[in-house]
């Protein structure tokens, strides 16, 4: 187990920069999730930690030791690949013991390490099979088993659940969390799935276009997104945004929309009156009430079973409402809604959060 320090990491492929200076400190035993859309550089960052990509600039330290120029095998890390990367011509047991055999561990040590990992992952009856005779979920387990037997300083996961179907993904997600609870191993997990990020992480690192947008606990990112990107990326259905002009008036303040309508903000915030701002509210925080301040035209109803996603238009701006009220399956052409002031997020001209 070890801490990992990433300092000023940059990466370019040729002249094309993909990472613009990433700083991150990962504590011993922490579960970190790198999340972001495709092409944001999260996988590249992970592969640099693994040693599969060269570092253009900056420094990576594992357990205090600089590893920039170390080969992957000398970094004492294990990685689980999206494709699992199991050796097809080796049995499950051989796949799991390959790293130990390369290190010339004793037969007894290999047998006990493989046995322990197999029983932890329920692989005992499959040890003699070849990967092609396994289902997707079983292959996934073998890939994790291969990582566990080494007892490495850190586990790296590169979108390990993307190739599984939804039900299995849910199940493996819980297993990974349980496994981390048992092993308390430093883990870095890359995903584009925000549910995986929210459920697994001790801390989430949200990335976009090669830049870290926010680092924090899952609820930090949900409750207090640092900027428009994080606000829009975390949460499903995504946050609603109203673009307009921030106007301070007396004790309070309001957001003036393009069509002249105003949305009250409740209190004055730390930006200049008259500047461009974006107001955000999550669909689940919009309150439907007969006496609501705003009129919303109902466009579409999406029942999800658990709740209902309503597509509505307020002041010509499309937005979504998530409600558990089944009466809203047949809401009529218009509903009245309130935007509770303590649930509003305001983002300034640059898209950063304003409090």
């Amino acid at each position: 187990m070890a801490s990992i320090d990433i300092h000023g990491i940059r990466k370019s492929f040729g002249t094309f920069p993909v990472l613009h200076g990433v700083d991150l400190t990962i504590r011993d035993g922490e579960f970190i999730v790198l999340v972001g859309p495709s092409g944001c550089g999260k996988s590249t960052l992970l592969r640099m930690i693994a040693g599969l990509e060269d570092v253009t600039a900056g420094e990576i330290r594992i357990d205090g030791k600089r590893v920039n120029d170390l080969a992957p095998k000398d970094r004492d890390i294990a990685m689980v690949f999206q494709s699992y990367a199991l050796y097809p011509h080796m049995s499950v047991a051989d796949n799991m013991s390959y790293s130990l055999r390369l290190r010339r561990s004793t037969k007894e040590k290999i047998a006990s390490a493989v046995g322990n990992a197999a029983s932890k992952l329920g692989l005992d009856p499959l040890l003699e099979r070849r990967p092609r005779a396994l289902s997707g979920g079983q292959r996934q387990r073998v890939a994790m088993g291969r990582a566990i037997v080494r007892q490495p300083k850190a586990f790296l996961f590169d979108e390990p659940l993307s190739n599984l179907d939804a039900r299995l993904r849910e199940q493996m997600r819980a297993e990974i969390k349980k496994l981390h609870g048992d092993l308390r191993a430093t883990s870095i997990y890359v995903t584009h799935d925000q549910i995986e990020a929210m459920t697994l992480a001790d801390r989430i690192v949200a990335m976009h276009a090669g830049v870290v947008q926010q680092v924090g606990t899952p609820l930090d990112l949900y409750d207090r997104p640092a900027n428009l990107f994080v606000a829009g990326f975390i949460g499903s259905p995504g946050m609603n945004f109203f673009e307009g002009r921030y106007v301070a008036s007396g004790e309070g303040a309001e957001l003036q929309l393009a069509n002249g309508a105003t949305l009250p903000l409740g209190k004055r915030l730390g930006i200049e009156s008259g500047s461009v701002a974006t107001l955000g509210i999550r669909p689940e925080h919009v309150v439907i009430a007969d006496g609501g301040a705003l009129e919303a035209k109902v466009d579409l109803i999406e029942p999800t079973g658990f709740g209902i996603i309503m597509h509505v238009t307020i002041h010509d701006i499309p937005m979504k409402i998530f409600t558990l009220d089944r009466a809203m399956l047949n809401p009529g052409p218009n509903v009245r809604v309130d935007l509770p002031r303590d649930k509003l997020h305001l983002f300034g001209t640059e898209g950063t959060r304003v409090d």
Partner: protein
Amino acid sequence: MTIAAHPQAVRPLKKRIADASEPYLYSAPALILIITVMLVPLALGISYAFRDIQLLNPLSGGFIGLDHFRALSEDQAFFRALRNTLWWTGASVFLQFLFGLILALLLDKPFAGRGIAQALVFLPWAVPSFLAGLNWAWLFNPVIGPLPHWMYALGIMDAPNNILSDPHLAMWGPIVANVWWGIPFFAITLLAALQAIPRDLYEAASIDGAGPVQRFLSITLPFLAPTIAITILLRTVWISNFADLIVVMTNGGPADRTQIVASYIFTQAFKRLDFGYASAIALVLLVLLLAYSMLIVLLRQTLLNKG
């Protein structure tokens, strides 16, 4: 149902014959073609092996049973040709494979100009074998070719002689030409197999602690094994039947030192014009190659089942 079945019972004979022969008529063109172009020559060739057929003797052509094979079993030239065939085929296939594999591994790594290099590698394959043979014969000829002088300068040879006229070295001439000519086949097929290996596996192995040699042994080789088996099988059969280079470069000489079974058949059939005896030798070669092919196919099957 009886009503529906009734018309069939009184179907006219002609119609029944037509219906029964319909599938055979459809497949007839293909079958006739295969029989005429493949089976008839094969059967004819096999029958020659049991007949006395000499082009210059109008009285020949009679059935002589196993006489050719009795003569063959005492023919020292044939046994020498058989040994030479083993030597020629073994050395050519091994060297072609070795250099082809090295070339494929080099071309698998990305570098500037790789596309052009890959196209150039294929070039020798496009050279007609007779032209390749002539070229190499000239290269080995000290009067016009540079190779003997270079080898002399490097101290490999005592004097800048033509190795093709040295009984102890002559076989190396056609082998070198054959290796040059056949490398592209191995390089291209092995390169295709190499590029089908998922890169993830190499990355996983390097994280697991495997060095370049271990990665080659535990990932590259197992993945290439089926391709290696089938290409070596094909090349072995082709090369042992491949007399062009030998006929052009040495014509079996000096003193029959480069005579292989295929060129011996050529000599018997088209120089001595003894088609019967040549067919008998060809039949023996066919049986040997069939046995060899069966062996390799079985080997490949067990390899595939294991993997």
